[in-house]
């Protein structure tokens, strides 16, 4: 009576269709195809988002002022991925960054290549390495690499 057993079960979830709000992400992706970033500034508080929502999350008003965002930026935080989220050790440690791009207020996440993880620090300068064949998808950002400026 007291025996407990474990039974494995799997869900077959339906395919979800997520509708993308035209403004911010499409603007970003179109720019990325050209190898540059386009964000949106809130005309009230001045906050620049990349990718941008169609409204300012702080002021709660619609926003529509596109601005150029540089592909160079500063490391705001980083972590070295030693094992994946399921606990499997990585073959090689991978460096994940949060970067504040010049001219932008929200940060962007990316991986850093071309540097040993022990030498990474907050405040270092990095730039985007764009993919050679760009298709207007998030994969157009290949990775971050150290920047000299």
């Amino acid at each position: 009576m007291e025996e407990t057993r474990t039974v494995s079960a799997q869900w077959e979830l339906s395919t979800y269709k997520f509708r993308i709000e035209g403004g911010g992400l499409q603007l970003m992706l179109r720019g990325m195809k050209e190898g540059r970033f386009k964000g949106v500034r809130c005309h009230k508080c001045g906050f620049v988002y990349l990718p941008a929502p169609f409204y300012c999350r702080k002021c709660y008003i619609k926003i529509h002022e596109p601005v150029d965002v540089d592909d160079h930026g500063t490391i705001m935080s980083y972590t070295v991925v030693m094992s994946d989220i399921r606990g499997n050790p990585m073959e090689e440690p991978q460096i994940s960054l949060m970067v504040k791009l010049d001219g932008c207020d929200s940060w962007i996440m990316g991986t850093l290549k071309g540097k040993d993880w022990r030498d990474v620090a907050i405040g270092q300068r990095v730039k985007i390495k764009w993919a050679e064949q760009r298709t207007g998808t998030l994969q157009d950002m290949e990775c971050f690499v150290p920047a000299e400026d």
Partner: protein
Amino acid sequence: MENKVAIVGVNLDSALDIEKSRERLIFDLVRGLMDDLGIEPTDVDTTIFATNDFLVGRTISNVFEDSPAGVYMRDESKVEMDATNAVMYGTMRILSGNYQTALIVSQGLCGHQVSPYLHISYSLNPIYDRQLGLLNELSAAAFQARDFLTKYGFGDDLMHAIAANSLANAALNPRQARQLPDISPQQVSESPYYYEPLRELHCYPPTDGGCAILLASAERAKELTDKPVWILGLGSSMDTYYIVERDLTVAPSATKAAKRAYEMAGISDPAREICFAEIAALFAHQEPILAEALGLMEASDAAEKYQSGETAIDGKLPINPSGGALGGHPIPATGGFRVAEATLQLRGEAGKNQVKDPKRAVVLGQDGICAQQNSVLVLGI
């Protein structure tokens, strides 16, 4: 809010693998609590669950949890959030005057059923964050830890000290899942890296567990217990989901939640008036960030506070004398565990974890990435 709603009974259980079905866990918790109090389901006016459908693996999962909780032809509701929010919901139902008692039930089986980190992964923005594939609960916590350490010039040794403080307390507490007797900062520093600087023992363990808490109006509380623990204040606040728009080294939503709770409780100087804190810090570095938001310390003093023993059970301001969430995180019951542990402390029933003669406690429960949402309760006797 003086002596209007009381916690009159708590029951909790957790383990890394509890070897019980969910129904059995809920039944044992609720039947056990009812037997302790000498009551039956008819004495419970309303039941509020805090559960997570993703982790349970069923939508509207509370409908299957009603009967083992004694809910049959009775009033029931649910929050899909940390259990502190269910305690608030129950408190408000009693304050409405329509209910004399409210039973809070919360449980999560993340120890053996499904990886706890996945519930955050599947909560991510599907068209951006999930496509980029870099954001998850551990990477976000690691970004936060790195920013926190860098801001104040702390080394990893502070993380080891904070974790050792919690884990040593957890090892004294039979209600905690992670039992590591004789834990030292050195041992924490030798645990494997997950997402650097986070090591295994800086992070909560996948945990099975649950809690049942009975709230009652002042009038009913007198009939049910000689040791009511009063809910003196409560507050909650929500930050943005987007961590790239937040300063992760501070928790302004916790500050706002605490301000409301303290005002309600008539507390103006928490560092002096609060006797101890139970804080759901899921990762070691979150404890000083959240303690600062609760007005208990300056985060810049964290190294001194943790190394001097001030935060220990016999220290000036004990933080997580129960062992906190590093001892166990049965999502989303963890905030309920903090409420239950604080209740046992205020009743003088915390055993080896007992703080000396506490009168007032602050409790924090959190949800989301890097403590996006915070709920704060002030309890007292």
